[in-house]
């Protein structure tokens, strides 16, 4: 199994732990991932609403580069995953946009055909690698641990290609394969606060607080997510949430970290210590 890996800015920055754990788990499972050469910003951020055509060209450049090699593109960051898929769909549906963007890419020596496939690691792990194989690699099952699987909005909306939009289950299955338990809760895809935590904190903090509070109420020891922005909002603002509402103290892990731990990889390999709310106390009990 060979894939191309599109890290995006998050996995090289504040989501470093996601990259570390994703690559470590892939390696251990024999999934070959090669970083896309000379990749650029996916075009997420506000740029989409500033100049849509240019943002399509920006994202399209990555796709055109990916088309030169074999293998699906894995985009672990939810925003990258969404923007790259949106770009592909947009260029397929709108001929005028396609003409402009492919023309721009051509002038940069790139040939965009629309043949790349952008996948999410949840999709690849569950549908390509398979739960059976993953279970075979689980050497240190996380028995007795209880997690809240929190997907965020972007991996299933609007493109619900590999999971349900309202009640996704792929991450729950992976967590179960790791030997841990998932709480049942209805907030799996509710808003984490998105960029509002920075722009309109009184709204953003409240949204993040809702997720944290409910996860704790349901008995979760940690929240597990596939999204760097969700991870950052839920993990990074807990002091401010404590000042405004109440202290929750809930570690927020990437699902690849959870899988890695169950597969017997070391905490340092998986970037466990990078979390602001320490997961050490919770994980010590496993």
């Amino acid at each position, binding site marked *: 199994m060979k894939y191309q890996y599109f890290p995006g800015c998050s996995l090289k920055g504040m989501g470093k732990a996601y990259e570390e754990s994703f690559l470590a788990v892939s390696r251990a499972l024999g999934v070959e991932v090669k970083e896309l050469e000379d990749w650029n910003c996916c075009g997420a951020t506000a740029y989409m609403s500033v100049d849509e055509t240019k943002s399509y060209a920006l994202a399209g450049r990555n796709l055109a580069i990916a088309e030169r090699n074999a293998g699906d593109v894995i985009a672990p960051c939810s925003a990258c995953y969404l923007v790259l898929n949106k770009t592909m769909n947009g260029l397929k549906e709108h001929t005028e946009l396609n003409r402009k963007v492919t023309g721009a890419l051509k002038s940069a020596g790139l040939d965009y055909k629309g043949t790349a496939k952008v996948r999410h690691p949840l999709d690849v792990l569950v549908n390509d690698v398979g739960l059976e194989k993953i279970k075979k690699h689980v050497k240190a099952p996380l028995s007795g641990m209880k997690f809240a699987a929190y997907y965020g909005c972007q991996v299933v909306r609007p493109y619900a290609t590999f999971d*349900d*939009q*309202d*009640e996704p289950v792929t991450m729950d299955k992976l967590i179960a394969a790791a030997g841990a338990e998932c709480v*049942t*809760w*209805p*907030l799996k895809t509710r808003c984490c606060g998105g960029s509002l935590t920075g722009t309109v904190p009184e709204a953003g903090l409240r949204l993040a607080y*809702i997720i944290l509070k*409910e996860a704790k109420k349901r008995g979760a020891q940690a929240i597990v997510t596939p999204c760097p922005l969700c991870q950052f909002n839920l993990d990074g603002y807990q002091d401010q949430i404590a000042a405004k509402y109440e202290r929750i103290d809930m570690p927020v892990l990437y699902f690849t970290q959870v899988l890695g731990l169950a597969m017997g990889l070391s905490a340092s390999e998986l970037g466990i210590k990078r979390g602001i709310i320490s997961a050490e106390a919770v994980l010590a009990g496993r």
Partner: protein
Amino acid sequence: MSDNKNKQADLPRVGFYICHCGSNIAGTIDVVEVSKYVSGLPGVAVSREYKYMCSDPGQEMIAQDIKDHKLERLVVAACSPNLHEETFRKAAAKGGLNPFFFQMVNIREHASWVHTDKGAATQKAMDLARAAVARVRHHQSLEKKRVPVDPNVLVVGGGIAGIHAALTLANAGKKVTLVEREATIGGHMALFDKTFPTLDCAACILTPKMSAVKSHPNIKLWTYSEVEKVEGYVGNYKVKVKRKPRYVNEDLCVGCMECIDACVFKEAKFPDKFNQGLGKRKPVYIDFPQATPKVVLLDPQTCIQLKTGKCKKSCAEVCDRKAFDFEQKEKFEEIQVGAIVLATGFKAYDAKRDHQYGYGRYPGVYTALEIERLVNASGPTSGEVVLRDGKKPKAVGIVHCVGSRDAKSNKWCSRVCCMYSLKLAHLIKEHSDAEVYNFYIDMRTPGKGYEEFYDKLLSEGVHFIRGRVSDVTDWAVTPEEEGRLVMRVEDTLAGFVRRIPVDMVVLSTGLEPQHDAQEVRRRFNIGCGSEGFFQERHPKLAPVNTFTDGIYIAGACQAPRDIPDTVAQAGAAAAEALALIDAGFVELEPNTSHVIEDECSGCKSCIPLCPYSAISFEENKKKAIINEVLCKGCGVCAAACPSGSIRQNLFEDDEIFSEIEGVLAK
């Protein structure tokens, strides 16, 4: 001009008539000019314009001209042939001309209605008229054929539509076979407690009709049976029906139900399909006390004897009529009928598909059909509105439009849900002390007494909130919400998002085509619309006819509809079938295709292309053969035949080519 006239000697004499259609045609096309122009064309003996050619004087003029001027061909330039082709064919016949020596030119829909430039439209009308005049010379004299009609009728589906159609036909003296796939007739209506808006008891009005079906001397009732194969054509269908084994002899069982008490399973423990899984049944069961026929049956999935062959068979022992037959096998029977009424009904939308409403996840979430059984006196709780844990709900929320008017699932309005939601709200109020909330997008109550019923509900203290519920969760944020279901909705009248805690949620699921509608459609050779409901021949003027003659549709298999509309439509379908049968024969349009046997190479290309399955292969001669009764004259085979050995009446090569030459000539 004189040149033209010189050539006329050996050409058939053509009469040309152009209609003003009031100002519909004459407003845009200079009909006098067209008439003048055509009068100069070769072979044209008469050319006239008239205000309304389809009127009696118009037709009379044509008939008279045929006699007076010894016309041999007729061309009328007027509206669409769909409207008046038949009218002018009759006028031709009245004048003593073979009705197929006629060609119609559509200068209304094809010219005057779609153009504004008078000059160009007039020119176009002239071109089209010239083409028709050139074509009609080559027309042949044709005859309509007649085939006899078998007076027996098959009705498929034993819901209220099938029941009503079968009774109507039987009362008119026709022999009817009613085939129903479930063990009892009654359909969805048998599940209901009350019907809107009159609130009369569904069973009280339905069961007498069910008994009437069972006891009618002209009706043969085959339940637990399915149509397997249909062959033949209008007036002469051969139908093969599969009769599934009940493991109980239907002629012997009297429905005393002692066997059910005697079953080795002391407790009923298997989900009861009739009660939507809310109740339990034993392997030997009857759907409900008034099931028709009142005959028990065995479920092979749960009956120990049928599964393992090792049971005491106490059910059979206690039966003094010796009705049990564990060796019963499915059997096939064949019947001959002249007409078929399809009344195969609908399927309720699967509420699990809308994950946001938590059906199947939260025990407090129900479908409307489940609530129909809960409020029903003969249902699993004897009419008591209680939750799955036996507690009484303090508040109930009814979500309209689940699986209706939704781009993500079904776009159509299911038409009955607003009204049945109101009915359920009323019944829940009547059967409990719960507060009832209706969440609706638009309240749709078009029907006799329907809006009045909505008014009545408003005065009964039922809450109405306009807005689509975004989700149903157990996410509580206030002490009042703890342990309950929270419905979140944007109240679009009040203009803010509300959270309403309830104990019971009712999902008003929409109506969908049956899961096997496509298979059934193919079996009966009829059409389906894009959403999968059976396609009527015309949405307004032929709502119970299909594109296959002799096959009629009634009820919710055609589109979502309520009981009054279903019954009306079933009556209409029965009347159409009667009109066909009582005529005694059908006349066939002569525009059919036929194979020139000497030229056919037997390549079989035409056979799979025929949408009406009219072409078969004669193995002895190795030639294709077209059944002209089944042929609808679509022309696909004639166009596709590689050797050009399929010809179609009224579309012969010389007719088409001369029409093309005519339209292109200047």
